[in-house]
């Protein structure tokens, strides 16, 4: 039996849904149709673009969630970090991370990643499930992520390490290089500055292992970005730990914001969470409910990096 036949047979017992199960989806479609024009679901524009890389989707989902305005009241009193401004905080962070050791990754190594993910309302059965912990191994010098011919825009960990290691001092040039690493395509509706800000944050989110001086330059570029804000107090991350939260400010209309969390002692990146900044119900533009509502301060999504480590083999634990 050949490989395709085996693949055909695998999960071939997946059921075809009965008509009743498809009715709610049809009603949503008709609700949109009855408005007489296309209705924009509260969804990212990018999912319609053929072949968007997962990383780019992550950035784009973030765009939809961004928000300015006052932070949710989850704070504890600040300790060491200077939380008076994002600029001050990120400059301070740059100094600290530049002192951290370089792991000197080698080709052939793997990145072990243990993450905790949460999605409020992800399941009707378990709307407030605890963060789900998972492990994965990512090839440091993944050839498929370095194959430019197939149009896959997801960079390898090696490319990100080398990007950090080769960054210049000029924040404008750093922004440009980050945007080249995380292309977002055309017709995004975003300004060039916004695209570059997202690219800086995507680099922060994706890069591991970290080149210390390069990461310091990335932090300085973020410090120079007027679109980056800091929550003026420590927040609790989804695991219950104190964290510094920086976030891109796109104005006051959005209902959530995407926070990038840093360790308050080491300033190392810890993960990201989306937080509702006011009570709201998710709706389609035709006014019908999408069936989910959120309270101010509620974490609607998170992906925390519990452990990251270089290992020598796929499947090896640190």
């Amino acid at each position, binding site marked *: 039996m050949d490989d395709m036949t085996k693949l055909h047979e695998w999960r071939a017992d997946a059921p075809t849904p009965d008509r009743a199960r498809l009715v709610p989806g049809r009603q949503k479609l008709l609700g949109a149709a009855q408005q007489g024009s296309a209705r924009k*679901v509260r969804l990212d524009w990018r999912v319609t673009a053929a072949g968007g890389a997962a990383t780019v989707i992550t950035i784009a989902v973030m765009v939809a969630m961004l928000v300015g305005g006052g932070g949710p009241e989850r704070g504890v009193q600040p300790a060491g970090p200077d939380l008076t401004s994002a600029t001050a905080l990120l400059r301070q962070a740059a100094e600290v991370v530049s002192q951290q050791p370089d792991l000197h990754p080698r080709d052939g190594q793997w990145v072990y990643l243990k*993450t905790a993910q949460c999605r409020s309302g992800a399941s009707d059965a378990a709307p407030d499930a605890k963060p789900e912990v998972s492990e994965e191994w990512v090839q440091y010098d993944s050839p498929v992520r370095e194959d430019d011919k197939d149009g896959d825009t997801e960079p390898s960990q090696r490319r990100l390490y080398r990007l950090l290691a080769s960054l210049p001092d000029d924040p404008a040039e750093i922004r440009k290089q980050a945007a080249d690493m995380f292309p977002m395509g055309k017709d995004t509706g975003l300004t060039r500055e916004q695209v570059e800000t997202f690219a800086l944050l995507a680099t922060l989110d994706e890069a591991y292992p970290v080149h210390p001086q390069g990461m310091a330059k990335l932090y300085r570029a973020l410090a120079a970005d007027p679109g980056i804000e800091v929550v003026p107090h420590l927040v609790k991350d989804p695991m219950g730990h104190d964290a510094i939260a920086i976030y891109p400010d796109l104005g006051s209309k959005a209902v959530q914001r995407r926070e990038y969390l840093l360790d308050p002692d080491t300033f190392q990146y810890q993960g990201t969470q989306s937080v509702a900044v006011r009570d709201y119900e998710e709706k389609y533009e035709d006014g019908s409910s999408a069936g989910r509502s959120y309270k101010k301060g509620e974490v609607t999504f998170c992906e925390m990096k519990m452990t990251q480590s270089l290992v020598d083999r796929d499947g090896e634990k640190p």
Partner: protein
Amino acid sequence: MGEPPTDDALVIQESLERPEIFARLYDRHAAEIHRYVMRRLGDSHADDITAQTFLIAFRNRARYDVARASARPWLYGIAGNLIGSHRRSEVRALRALARTGVDSVAESWSERADERVTAEASQQALAGAIAALPGKDRHVLLLVAWADLTYQECADALGVPVGTVRSRLNRARRKMRKALGADPTLVSDHNGAVTHG
């Protein structure tokens, strides 16, 4: 008012004037899209992604290339992008299957809540190989194997040349064959012809 059009492209075209007729597309294709999502991500995502697929398609129907009679590739392309946003979940489940033999995706539709769906060794090997593929190769492989799209339809779905579909599929199949312990250079065409890849 005459008979409703049988061709998807005509339905889409007519829906620009009569939006509600777009539901005909849903009636034709929602079940298979739903099953495809189920097969990749499991029961919990199938309703939502299917509904979103058709809402996005409806919103973008004015840009549909009416020279393409069947909307299946277009719909699978949209669904594929939505599935792609769950890449970590999909890969995690595949890796777990490769390691433990327990298929949490297949369990999601099993009759009994406590039923364990265990895979054959070859399926474990396949799952490990598919987990290791880049997302775009995985999309091509599963669009061909599970959605029964032709190479051209697959190219239409993903917005890439058909040659790219072939190369991604060949690459994915080499890895599958290697995982299954077969000669990875020997790749039979999906239609049956055998060539060296």
